[in-house]
């Protein structure tokens, strides 16, 4: 395998939330296969800046898959083709020489585009804010959601059920009456934000960099039903 490969990138460019966007094509030569995907985008941006053009906006921060700031859809798959990892953990060695990558932002009514690949995920903040002391609650080992939004991006209906379900599992240590109200408030906020409805395609758990299982959705459905019928 060569140490360096060439890729064609079709990247979504959009000036702001209300402007129409379009794809821009970049032919990138000689990318070190040990580089990360975001480092490659930095290469593109360096070139754009030198040419006096607007660099591509994209989210990034920790570079080890814990902060949830990064994320883009590569050839239809949020965070790209590798399961259980986020975009910053994706390496160029996962692609073939000469391959074309179509790179798009998360697309959902609940996540308006800020610019290019960067989306506004404040809807998630407003859902979490239904639990004011969320930071103080212990996080279950199998539901360590990093709020990246890949579940919404992967869901054919742009549903936020996996995200909310992971947060509901997070509420387990609360006393029952409080837990009940918080769960109902989170679900109501999720609906107000314009996310879609779950149709059990389970694309969310496949896209989740933390591999959170749809079992959490079933638990939330059960809890919701019990609360509703009681």
């Amino acid at each position: 395998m060569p140490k360096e490969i060439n890729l064609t990138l079709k990247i979504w460019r959009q000036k702001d939330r209300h402007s129409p966007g379009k794809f821009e094509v970049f032919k990138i030569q000689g990318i070190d296969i040990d580089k990360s995907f975001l480092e490659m985008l930095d290469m593109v941006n360096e070139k754009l800046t030198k040419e006096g053009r607007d660099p591509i906006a994209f989210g990034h921060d920790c570079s080890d898959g814990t902060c949830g700031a990064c994320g883009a859809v590569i050839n239809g798959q949020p965070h790209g083709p590798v399961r259980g990892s986020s975009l910053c953990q994706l390496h160029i060695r996962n692609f073939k020489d000469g391959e074309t990558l179509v790179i798009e932002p998360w697309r959902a009514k609940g996540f308006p585009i800020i610019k290019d690949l960067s989306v506004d995920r404040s809807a998630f903040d407003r859902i979490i804010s239904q639990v004011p002391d969320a930071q103080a609650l212990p996080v279950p080992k199998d539901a360590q959601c990093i709020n990246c939004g890949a579940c919404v991006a992967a869901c054919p209906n742009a549903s936020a059920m996996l995200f909310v379900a992971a947060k509901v599992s997070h509420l387990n240590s609360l006393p029952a009456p409080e837990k009940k109200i918080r769960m109902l408030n989170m679900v109501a906020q999720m609906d107000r934000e314009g996310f879609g409805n779950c149709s059990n395609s389970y694309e969310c758990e496949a896209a989740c960099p933390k591999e959170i299982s749809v079992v959490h959705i079933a638990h939330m459905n059960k809890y919701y039903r019990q609360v509703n019928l009681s």
Partner: protein
Amino acid sequence: MFLNSSIAKKQTVAITGFLLILFVITHLGGNLLIYAGPAVFNSYAQQLHSLGPLLLIARALLLIIFLLHIFVIHILIIQNIKARGGLKRYAIDQATGKRTLAQRMMPWSGLYIFVFVVFHILDFAAAHQQGPRSFIQGTSYGLYGLVYNAFKDPVHSLLYIVAVYFLGMHLSHGVQSVVQTWGFRPKWADLIQRGSNYFAVMMVIGYSSIPIYIYWLSH
């Protein structure tokens, strides 16, 4: 109101779906009596009719359940299209997980089933049971005759078999979906998906065996 909540709407679709699954099983049970010959099959139909008002109530309930299932799902579908930002989304439509064809096809298989059910009711239940379509070699065979003459025609049979195939697709996703949406998710969840598929295949075989059998009998 339950229509404001996404989960409550989903659970309405699940519970009506479950009741419709029960109907699909019972209906097949009745239909399979065709193998016992015209006398048994027709007497079963007559027994049902002799229930009078009870049958009317059962039919009305079934209609309400059927329409509620369709009504709520159509609200969900419109919301989903809005949520994803229109019909076209990503430039490349590639699944991330194991999204099945049956799942993708749910609205379409559902639509086909709906159109088929209207046709099917007009075809058998609402048809004149002693009319010209019930005659086999000069004698009226009632409902049995209607079914016999319908499935003698290969095009008519094929229409039913295609509908039953769509029903099977709808069930293979629907059965496990009821379990997930209603919140039963035991350790053996993988078994539910497989069970859902087996159940769908059984229904397809059961239902489509009838037009095939009649076609074979009449040729």
